[in-house]
């Protein structure tokens, strides 16, 4: 059993590390948090993590910060929030201070731009592999409705640019109706 202090230390180091090295925005960081806290540390259950990610996405503010809040809170309460949020904002704080000083050097350097261009392909691959893993896990449950929601949400978000908030609200309403209609049918 790890003590509270060790756990907070581990939480601090892993969020600091994720925040410092995760290029590509909030969606990438929440998927890496899932890998770290669900698959590596077994601190959070897979299904719970989906809900926590949904909370991080639907609330206002940066997804990386929101993700740190939900994970920190789940693992160690208010103290966990403080630890993981501080760990999340230290890297951008330092990096921005440095980069803005040497901005012109960064902007015109061909190797930096090539590095960044290549990393985009790498980030695409990371997300693709995570989506594949998550989707195959979910589809094992053999509920055709899951597939319908997955495709519907994708089309709505990608092609029709429907706001994330509305998609999440629609899914909750759908679950709500599904639950109460089925309940009533069962009890008749």
């Amino acid at each position, binding site marked *: 059993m790890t003590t509270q202090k060790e756990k907070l230390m581990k939480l601090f180091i892993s969020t600091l590390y994720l925040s410092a090295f995760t290029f590509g925005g*909030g*969606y990438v960081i929440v998927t890496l948090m899932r890998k770290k806290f669900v698959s590596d540390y077994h601190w959070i259950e897979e299904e719970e993590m989906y*809900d926590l990610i949904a909370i991080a996405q639907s609330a206002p*503010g940066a997804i990386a910060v929101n993700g740190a809040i939900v994970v920190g809170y789940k693992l160690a309460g208010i103290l966990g929030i403080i630890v993981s949020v501080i760990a999340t904002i230290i890297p951008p704080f330092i990096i921005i201070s440095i980069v803005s000083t040497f901005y012109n050097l960064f902007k015109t350097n061909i190797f930096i731009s090539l590095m960044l261009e290549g990393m985009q392909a*790498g980030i*695409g691959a990371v997300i693709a592999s995570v989506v594949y893993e998550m989707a195959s896990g979910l589809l094992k449950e053999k509920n055709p409705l899951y597939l319908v929601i997955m495709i519907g949400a994708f089309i709505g978000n990608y092609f029709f640019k429907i706001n*994330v908030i509305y998609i999440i609200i629609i899914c909750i309403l759908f*679950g709500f109706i599904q639950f109460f209609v089925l309940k009533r049918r069962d009890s008749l």
Partner: protein
Amino acid sequence: MIYVQLFLSFLQIGAFSFGGGYAAMPLIQNQVVDLHHWLSLSEFTDLVTISQMTPGPIAVNAATFVGTKVAGVTGAFIATLGCILPSCLIVTGIAYLYLKYRHMKALQEILNYLRPAVISLIATAGLSIMISAFFGEQVISLYTLKIQMVIIFMICLYLLVIKKCHPIFVMILAGVLNVCQYMIQGG
């Protein structure tokens, strides 16, 4: 006085930017460029470029950048605090309710229908990044497809799925591979 202004400005950015990432951009521009004139439009464009080049959320980056410029390190600190405060309150509130009631059967079954949507949202973000990697800013067609990017993507996917390599290692490797292919072709 400037501290209060910075704080309130970034508080609004933190409270009203839904959807993360670049959804926050117009809001930041409105506060920082149009309302308070802390940055010129070209400085703002530089900030966006820097945010694309570095890890970290754009709102937090903007808070550090603008805060430092207007009122030094204290300014950066206060702006960042303003930017994350709404998240801390709102997200903690929702997480509290969720963790308290999640064992209710009704809530669990309702939330089951949220999970496939979460996967789709992540997939959408991934697809946008892939398209930008494969085609750059250009029109999507066979002629604008950057073959070297597709190859790097395939190598990364192989390392991740089959070899189970660490994602951060793979991301950095992708950057290094692109530099190498440039040097081989150019040299």
